[in-house]
Protein backbone atom coordinates (compact mmCIF):
# COMPACT_ATOMS: atom_id res chain seq x y z
CA UNK A 1 0.00 0.00 0.00
CA UNK A 2 1.40 3.41 -0.93
CA UNK A 3 2.56 5.53 1.97
CA UNK A 4 4.13 8.84 2.80
CA UNK A 5 7.77 8.51 3.82
CA UNK A 6 9.81 11.02 5.80
CA UNK A 7 13.50 11.45 6.49
CA UNK A 8 15.25 11.78 8.83
CA UNK A 9 13.31 10.11 11.60
CA UNK A 10 15.23 12.11 14.17
CA UNK A 11 17.53 15.09 13.82
CA UNK A 12 19.44 16.92 16.50
CA UNK A 13 20.76 20.37 15.64
CA UNK A 14 22.25 23.41 17.28
CA UNK A 15 20.22 26.59 17.59
CA UNK A 16 20.74 28.82 14.59
CA UNK A 17 21.49 25.98 12.19
CA UNK A 18 19.52 25.25 9.05
CA UNK A 19 17.50 22.07 8.88
CA UNK A 20 15.84 20.37 5.92
CA UNK A 21 13.17 17.76 6.49
CA UNK A 22 12.27 15.57 3.55
CA UNK A 23 9.09 13.87 2.52
CA UNK A 24 8.03 11.66 -0.35
CA UNK A 25 4.26 11.95 -0.72
CA UNK A 26 2.06 9.31 -2.30
CA UNK A 27 2.76 9.49 -6.02
CA UNK A 28 -0.64 10.46 -7.45
CA UNK A 29 -1.48 12.95 -4.72
CA UNK A 30 -1.72 16.63 -5.55
CA UNK A 31 -1.89 18.37 -2.17
CA UNK A 32 0.93 18.37 0.33
CA UNK A 33 1.13 19.53 3.91
CA UNK A 34 3.41 20.02 6.84
CA UNK A 35 2.16 19.81 10.42
CA UNK A 36 4.03 19.89 13.66
CA UNK A 37 3.37 18.56 17.12
CA UNK A 38 5.24 19.99 20.08
CA UNK A 39 5.51 17.40 22.83
CA UNK A 40 2.24 17.16 24.72
CA UNK A 41 0.44 19.64 22.53
CA UNK A 42 -1.95 19.41 19.64
CA UNK A 43 -1.04 18.81 16.02
CA UNK A 44 -0.69 22.20 14.34
CA UNK A 45 -0.98 23.09 10.68
CA UNK A 46 2.03 24.78 9.13
CA UNK A 47 1.54 24.95 5.40
CA UNK A 48 -0.24 23.46 2.42
CA UNK A 49 1.19 23.22 -1.09
CA UNK A 50 -0.56 22.71 -4.38
CA UNK A 51 0.41 23.21 -8.00
CA UNK A 52 3.96 24.12 -7.00
CA UNK A 53 3.03 26.94 -4.70
CA UNK A 54 1.91 27.55 -1.16
CA UNK A 55 -1.88 27.53 -1.00
CA UNK A 56 -2.26 28.24 2.70
CA UNK A 57 0.00 28.83 5.65
CA UNK A 58 -0.42 29.43 9.35
CA UNK A 59 0.98 32.21 11.48
CA UNK A 60 3.63 29.76 12.67
CA UNK A 61 5.01 29.54 9.15
CA UNK A 62 7.09 32.70 9.20
CA UNK A 63 10.05 33.76 7.09
CA UNK A 64 12.27 31.16 8.76
CA UNK A 65 10.29 28.41 7.07
CA UNK A 66 10.13 27.48 3.41
CA UNK A 67 8.85 24.56 1.38
CA UNK A 68 9.59 23.30 -2.06
CA UNK A 69 9.09 20.36 -4.33
CA UNK A 70 12.39 20.36 -6.19
CA UNK A 71 12.06 17.27 -8.35
CA UNK A 72 8.40 16.36 -8.56
CA UNK A 73 8.63 13.67 -5.91
CA UNK A 74 10.29 15.08 -2.79
CA UNK A 75 8.57 17.71 -0.70
CA UNK A 76 10.87 19.51 1.70
CA UNK A 77 10.49 21.77 4.71
CA UNK A 78 13.44 24.04 5.43
CA UNK A 79 13.93 25.89 8.68
CA UNK A 80 16.55 28.50 8.00
CA UNK A 81 17.74 29.33 11.51
CA UNK A 82 16.36 26.97 14.12
CA UNK A 83 15.19 28.11 17.52
CA UNK A 84 14.73 26.09 20.68
CA UNK A 85 10.96 26.32 20.25
CA UNK A 86 11.18 24.62 16.86
CA UNK A 87 11.79 21.35 18.69
CA UNK A 88 8.83 19.19 17.71
CA UNK A 89 7.66 16.26 15.65
CA UNK A 90 7.08 17.35 12.07
CA UNK A 91 4.57 15.44 10.00
CA UNK A 92 4.26 15.48 6.27
CA UNK A 93 0.93 14.58 4.69
CA UNK A 94 -0.54 14.31 1.24
CA UNK A 95 -4.01 14.15 -0.22
CA UNK A 96 -5.39 13.36 -3.66
CA UNK A 97 -7.82 16.26 -3.47
CA UNK A 98 -8.62 19.32 -1.42
CA UNK A 99 -11.24 17.41 0.53
CA UNK A 100 -11.22 14.03 2.18
CA UNK A 101 -8.58 12.50 4.36
CA UNK A 102 -4.90 13.26 4.59
CA UNK A 103 -2.31 10.51 4.56
CA UNK A 104 0.48 11.08 7.05
CA UNK A 105 4.09 10.06 7.27
CA UNK A 106 5.67 8.73 10.45
CA UNK A 107 7.13 12.08 11.32
CA UNK A 108 10.56 13.62 11.80
CA UNK A 109 11.54 14.46 15.33
CA UNK A 110 13.58 17.66 15.48
CA UNK A 111 15.53 18.49 18.61
CA UNK A 112 17.13 21.92 18.79
CA UNK A 113 19.83 22.35 21.43
Amino acid at each position, binding site marked *: EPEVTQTPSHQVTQMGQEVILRCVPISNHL*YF*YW*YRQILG*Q*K*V*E*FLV*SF*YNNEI*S*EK*SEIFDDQFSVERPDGSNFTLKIRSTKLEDSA*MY*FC*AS*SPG*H*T*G*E*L*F*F*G*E*GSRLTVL
Partner: protein
Amino acid sequence: AQTVTQSQPEMSVQEAETVTLSCTYDTSESDYYLFWYKQPPSRQMILVIRQEAYKQQNATENRFSVNFQKAAKSFSLKISDSQLGDAAMYFCAYRSLFQGGSEKLVFGKGTKLTVNP
Protein backbone atom coordinates in the same frame (compact mmCIF):
# COMPACT_ATOMS: atom_id res chain seq x y z
CA ALA B 1 -11.98 29.85 12.55
CA GLN B 2 -12.86 26.26 13.24
CA THR B 3 -11.93 24.64 16.54
CA VAL B 4 -12.00 21.03 17.70
CA THR B 5 -12.20 20.09 21.36
CA GLN B 6 -11.47 16.72 22.93
CA SER B 7 -12.30 16.96 26.59
CA GLN B 8 -10.82 13.61 27.64
CA PRO B 9 -7.01 13.68 27.73
CA GLU B 10 -6.93 10.02 28.73
CA MET B 11 -9.32 7.10 28.72
CA SER B 12 -8.96 3.46 29.59
CA VAL B 13 -11.01 0.38 28.73
CA GLN B 14 -10.90 -3.30 29.47
CA GLU B 15 -10.18 -5.60 26.59
CA ALA B 16 -13.42 -6.68 24.84
CA GLU B 17 -15.36 -3.79 26.36
CA THR B 18 -16.74 -0.70 24.64
CA VAL B 19 -15.40 2.82 24.99
CA THR B 20 -16.59 6.16 23.65
CA LEU B 21 -14.27 9.07 22.93
CA SER B 22 -15.79 12.54 22.83
CA CYS B 23 -15.25 15.35 20.36
CA THR B 24 -16.99 18.65 19.84
CA TYR B 25 -16.25 21.25 17.22
CA ASP B 26 -17.17 24.76 16.33
CA THR B 27 -17.78 26.01 12.80
CA SER B 28 -20.06 28.32 10.89
CA GLU B 29 -19.80 26.18 7.77
CA SER B 30 -22.48 23.72 6.76
CA ASP B 31 -20.39 21.36 4.64
CA TYR B 32 -17.34 19.65 6.08
CA TYR B 33 -15.66 16.38 6.90
CA LEU B 34 -14.95 15.02 10.33
CA PHE B 35 -12.30 12.41 10.99
CA TRP B 36 -10.91 10.24 13.72
CA TYR B 37 -7.23 9.49 13.36
CA LYS B 38 -5.30 6.95 15.41
CA GLN B 39 -1.66 7.50 16.31
CA PRO B 40 -0.08 4.33 17.71
CA PRO B 41 3.30 4.47 19.43
CA SER B 42 4.96 4.02 16.01
CA ARG B 43 3.89 7.66 15.45
CA GLN B 44 2.16 7.53 12.06
CA MET B 45 -1.39 8.85 12.11
CA ILE B 46 -3.81 6.60 10.30
CA LEU B 47 -7.41 7.25 9.47
CA VAL B 48 -9.94 5.33 11.54
CA ILE B 49 -13.20 6.70 10.25
CA ARG B 50 -14.63 9.71 8.47
CA GLN B 51 -18.02 11.37 8.30
CA GLU B 52 -19.33 13.80 5.71
CA ALA B 53 -21.52 16.39 7.39
CA TYR B 54 -24.20 16.20 4.70
CA LYS B 55 -24.79 12.53 5.47
CA GLN B 56 -27.27 11.88 8.25
CA GLN B 57 -26.25 8.25 8.65
CA ASN B 58 -23.48 7.66 11.15
CA ALA B 59 -20.33 6.16 9.66
CA THR B 60 -19.19 2.70 10.75
CA GLU B 61 -16.00 0.77 10.08
CA ASN B 62 -16.05 -2.69 11.60
CA ARG B 63 -15.70 -2.17 15.39
CA PHE B 64 -15.55 1.60 15.04
CA SER B 65 -18.61 3.78 14.77
CA VAL B 66 -19.44 7.43 15.29
CA ASN B 67 -22.31 9.32 16.80
CA PHE B 68 -22.56 12.46 14.70
CA GLN B 69 -24.87 15.14 16.06
CA LYS B 70 -24.65 18.02 13.61
CA ALA B 71 -26.87 20.43 15.50
CA ALA B 72 -24.94 19.84 18.70
CA LYS B 73 -21.61 19.85 16.80
CA SER B 74 -20.65 16.62 18.43
CA PHE B 75 -18.73 13.73 16.89
CA SER B 76 -17.95 10.87 19.26
CA LEU B 77 -16.12 7.65 18.43
CA LYS B 78 -17.28 4.32 19.79
CA ILE B 79 -14.89 1.40 19.84
CA SER B 80 -16.59 -1.93 20.41
CA ASP B 81 -14.90 -5.14 21.53
CA SER B 82 -11.71 -3.21 22.35
CA GLN B 83 -8.44 -4.92 21.50
CA LEU B 84 -4.93 -4.37 22.81
CA GLY B 85 -3.97 -3.00 19.40
CA ASP B 86 -6.48 -0.19 19.81
CA ALA B 87 -4.23 1.44 22.39
CA ALA B 88 -3.11 4.72 20.87
CA MET B 89 -3.64 8.44 20.79
CA TYR B 90 -6.87 9.31 19.01
CA PHE B 91 -7.33 12.64 17.30
CA CYS B 92 -10.57 14.16 16.14
CA ALA B 93 -10.17 16.43 13.11
CA TYR B 94 -12.21 18.79 10.95
CA ARG B 95 -11.81 19.70 7.31
CA SER B 96 -13.88 22.16 5.32
CA LEU B 97 -15.78 21.00 2.28
CA PHE B 98 -16.48 24.54 1.25
CA GLN B 99 -14.97 25.24 -2.16
CA GLY B 100 -13.34 28.46 -1.09
CA GLY B 101 -12.64 27.32 2.43
CA SER B 102 -9.47 26.20 4.11
CA GLU B 103 -8.17 22.82 3.03
CA LYS B 104 -6.24 22.15 6.21
CA LEU B 105 -7.16 19.65 8.89
CA VAL B 106 -7.88 21.14 12.28
CA PHE B 107 -7.07 18.76 15.11
CA GLY B 108 -8.20 18.36 18.66
CA LYS B 109 -5.62 17.80 21.39
CA GLY B 110 -6.10 14.07 21.35
CA THR B 111 -7.25 11.36 23.75
CA LYS B 112 -4.80 8.73 24.91
CA LEU B 113 -6.56 5.37 25.03
CA THR B 114 -5.21 2.58 27.18
CA VAL B 115 -6.57 -0.95 26.77
CA ASN B 116 -6.20 -3.15 29.82
CA PRO B 117 -5.92 -6.92 29.38
